[in-house]
């Protein structure tokens, strides 16, 4: 055989054709049947074909080897161009257009084929293989399309029809094109073009999707001119003599792109552009992607469901693992669906991968999905060419889920929601800026808008809260849990009796505060947390944050004792006046412990009796309840101190009981203060309110002792646990120690009564607090019990071993 020199374009083209004909996949011999078909498609007289066959030496060999095949192709090109068949002409003819093969079944194609100027059309290759009638039609159209660009805007009219058809083929065919590219991972653009073009066909034929492969052929058909033209658009001018694609033809090419070949063109183009930025999507590529997107999802603002995308990208014949990775990279919002941006990114990655680029580990910035608005603006300029396509998807995508149009309706909503989310963030940020300038307003905005349901219910009077808030900056609002976190430090800080007492009183008196005041409540809440547990609506979690903080101020515990009455006496006018609301007990607390030990001696049995007694007779000496004190002592050493105070206490034994129990409770309460803060919720609130109510409802004489006693009884169970909290005992001791000798308010009867009233009130508040604390303690214990039970269950299986 004569040596055959082929241009690169021809080389690739011929090799593709050879592969196409190599149905047996021998890579050496083209099956005669295919070759015959191919030659027939060349629309040359049979005599010419015979001559060619002889010339190429196939007749001698009896089969078409690769070289023979190439020679035959070249001879066909020569014959088609009208030159005489000469062996010498094989190498002498310059700028020989690629042989054209037209599908014999399509007259239209033949016409079109004839229309194509040689200079422009390089190897428009029509599918020779038999195709289903329907497909044929479409293929014709696609072929037309393909040819169009080759004609370089020669026939704009057919485009209108072809686009309609092509789109539905493009998706299936594009993968073929891709596959083609994959075969040639490297190489310059020029080399790629024809190779891509030709390569498209053979693989397309091999595809399981027979009809689709026809499209692939068409794709390849158009690919050469497209590729070359595309290349010219991009950096490296192709060696081909194809005329440059006009901008108008860009649209044509876009239509063509819908054909599989377009994909190859794009790939080449991408490759060329990829040299500059491997991941940058050129406009043409994006156009193509958008068209592809439309074939699946007519609504450009909609989503492509995962299943449809999977089918689409599976056609690219990339390994599932790589497709999975591409999906992970491109599905930015991880919603299982692809927006236009995500789809373009995924498509681009697939193309790159087919071109041999390794997949990145992270999504490149250029592929990051942008705002949908940008996409819309980009797509506006292409209404015309896409109009035709819009109709095609309807009929085209039979394999696509028909539910997509319906799904698309949801997706725009999602998209809109995304946009809303974007704006939402802006809104929130702007609101946050306000906090810096106006602490009062700040809390309302961010907290109510964004802050999760943090407790806020802190009951402390809003007034106090706001006052506290004013002192602080807006920093407290930033973190919903910060207030709770801030509580512990505040708790530790506010060991001052007076302040704590005041807060306590406030908190006790107030109900739940609104969420708005939450931030403002932070400070006071923190200080009052321990006392407030019952009132604080803080979520358990928020309270838990407070759990660690040190026990509430000592006075707290001290006054939670029933000894408030004593405290009332000791502080008489001062503290009680200063604390109009309940719970003032700060000062009084010190006193109560004293009577406790004495009262303890009178076991809870004497509840209702003595309680009132103290009111009536403040000067009553403690009944001989001291006997109980020794019992208390081992539990609470503080009570030993109380015995000293017994002399001072005028309260009846009941008070003492209250005091004792209260003291114990307080110990437990203090220790569990933080815990209570955690757990105090409505329960404590109810109880405290109940306590308060009971306290309030009862006569000034009776109430305090009664509720206290009941609590004490219930708390007896807790006492052992109270022992665990030596802190309380210490606190109590300190409180007691700080108590100076209690002055006796003998004075006038009126004054005494008033003082007693005040003391009773204080006692009420103290008791109310005590109740709440005890409730919380109970909750804590219950939780501990539950956890222990769970642990027991966990260990149970192993017990069998």
């Amino acid at each position, binding site marked *: 055989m004569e040596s055959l020199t082929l241009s690169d374009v021809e080389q690739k083209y011929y090799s593709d054709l050879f592969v196409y004909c190599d149905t047996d996949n021998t890579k050496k011999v083209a099956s005669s049947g295919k070759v015959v078909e191919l030659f027939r498609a060349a629309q040359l007289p049979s005599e010419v074909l015979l001559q060619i066959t002889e010339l190429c030496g196939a007749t001698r060999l009896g089969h078409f080897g690769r070289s023979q095949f190439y020679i035959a192709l070249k001879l066909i090109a020569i014959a088609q161009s009208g030159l005489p068949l000469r062996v010498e002409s094989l190498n002498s003819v310059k700028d020989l257009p690629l042989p054209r093969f037209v599908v014999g079944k399509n007259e239209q194609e033949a016409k079109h084929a004839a229309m194509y100027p040689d200079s422009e059309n390089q190897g428009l290759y029509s599918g020779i293989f038999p195709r289903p009638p329907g497909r044929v039609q479409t293929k014709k159209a696609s072929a037309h399309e393909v040819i169009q660009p080759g004609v370089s805007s020669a026939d704009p009219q057919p485009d209108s029809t072809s686009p309609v058809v092509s789109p539905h083929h493009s998706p299936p065919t594009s993968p073929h094109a891709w596959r083609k590219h994959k075969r040639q991972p490297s190489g310059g653009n020029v080399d790629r073009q024809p190779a891509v073009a030709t390569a498209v066909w053979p693989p397309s034929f091999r595809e399981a999707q027979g009809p689709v492969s026809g499209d692939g052929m068409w794709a390849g058909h158009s690919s050469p001119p497209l590729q070359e033209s595309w290349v010219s658009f991009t950096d490296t001018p192709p060696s081909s003599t194809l005329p440059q694609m006009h901008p108008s033809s860009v649209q044509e090419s876009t239509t063509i792109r819908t054909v599989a070949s377009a994909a190859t063109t794009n790939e080449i183009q991408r490759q060329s552009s990829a040299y500059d930025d491997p991941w940058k999507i050129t406009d043409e590529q994006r156009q193509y992607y958008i068209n592809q997107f439309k074939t699946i999802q007519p609504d450009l603002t909609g989503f492509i469901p995962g299943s449809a995308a999977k089918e689409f990208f599976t056609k690219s014949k990339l390994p599932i693992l790589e497709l*999975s*990775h591409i999906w992970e990279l491109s*599905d930015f919002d991880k919603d*299982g669906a692809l927006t236009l941006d995500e789809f373009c990114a995924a498509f681009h990655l697939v193309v790159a991968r087919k071109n041999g680029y390794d997949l990145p*580990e992270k999504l490149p910035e250029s592929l990051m999905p942008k705002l949908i608005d940008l996409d819309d603006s980009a797509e506006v300029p292409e209404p015309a060419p896409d109009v035709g396509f819009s109709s095609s998807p309807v009929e085209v995508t039979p394999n696509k889920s028909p539910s997509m149009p319906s799904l698309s309706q949801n997706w725009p909503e999602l998209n809109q929601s995304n946009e809303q989310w974007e704006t939402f963030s802006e809104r929130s940020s702007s609101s946050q800026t306000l906090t810096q300038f106006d602490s009062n307003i700040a809390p309302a905005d961010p907290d109510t808008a964004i802050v999760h349901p943090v407790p806020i219910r802190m009951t402390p009077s809003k007034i106090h809260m706001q006052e506290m808030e004013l002192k602080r900056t807006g920093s407290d609002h930033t973190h919903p849990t910060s207030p709770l976190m801030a509580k512990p430090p505040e708790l530790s800080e506010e060991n001052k009796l007076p302040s704590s007492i005041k807060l306590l009183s406030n908190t006790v008196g107030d109900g739940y505060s609104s969420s708005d005041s939450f931030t403002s409540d932070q400070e006071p809440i923190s200080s009052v947390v321990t006392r407030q547990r019952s009132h604080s609506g803080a979520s358990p979690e928020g309270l838990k944050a407070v759990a660690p903080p040190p026990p509430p101020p000592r006075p707290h515990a001290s006054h939670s004792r029933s000894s408030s009455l004593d405290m009332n006496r000791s502080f008489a006018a001062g503290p009680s006046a200063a604390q109009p609301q309940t719970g003032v007990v700060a000062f009084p607390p010190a006193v109560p412990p004293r009577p406790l030990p004495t009262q303890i001696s009178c076991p809870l049995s004497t509840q209702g009796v003595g309680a009132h007694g103290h009111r009536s007779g403040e000067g009553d000496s403690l009944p001989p309840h001291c006997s109980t004190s020794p019992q208390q002592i081992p539990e609470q050493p503080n009570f030993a101190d109380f015995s000293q105070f017994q002399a001072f206490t005028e309260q009846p034994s009941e008070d003492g009981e209250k005091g004792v129990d209260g003291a114990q409770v307080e110990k437990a309460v203090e220790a569990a203060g933080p815990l209570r803060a955690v757990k105090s919720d409505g329960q404590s609130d109810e109880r405290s309110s109940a306590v308060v109510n009971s306290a309030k409802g009862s006569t000034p004489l009776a109430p305090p002792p009664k509720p206290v006693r009941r609590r004490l009884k219930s708390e007896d169970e807790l006492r052992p646990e109270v022992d665990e909290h030596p802190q309380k005992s210490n606190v109590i001791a300190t409180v007691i120690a700080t108590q100076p000798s209690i002055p006796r308010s003998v004075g006038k009867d009126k004054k005494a009564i008033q003082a007693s009233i005040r003391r009773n009130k204080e006692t009420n508040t103290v008791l109310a607090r005590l109740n709440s604390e005890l409730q919380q303690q109970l909750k804590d214990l219950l939780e501990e019990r539950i956890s222990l039970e769970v642990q027991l269950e*966990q260990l149970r*299986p192993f017990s069998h071993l």
Partner: protein
Amino acid sequence: MAVCVAVIAKENYPLYIRSVPTQNELKFHYTVHTSLDVVEEKVSAVGKALADQRELYLGLLYPTEDYKVYGYVTNSKVKFVIVVDSSNTSLRDNEIRSMFRKLHNSFTDVMCNPFYNPGDAIQSRAFDSVVSGMMVQAC
């Protein structure tokens, strides 16, 4: 930091298991396998009480000398098992919970991938990176 992370499917076969390579990995495989019994027990125990609610985080399944095993079950009966070194006492319960939360999120992302067939082994690189992030860094 975990020493071994495993994802077990509903049918109790592993979808993903990865351990610190320095140690005998087979031992961890056994550990995870035995932990499945404990998981089943916990799941069945709670299920009777509250069929609707069941905490996903199972907590410490069982401790051994060298390490502790924590479990987590999703609502689709996919189990996550984390084995941590006992010497690492600084690990708090919240940290374990956050690890499981991250695992669950990455697992959800893997599920969302249409190219992933439920029941296949998890080969997602993103998932691998998440797991690597929580494994002991010694390796």
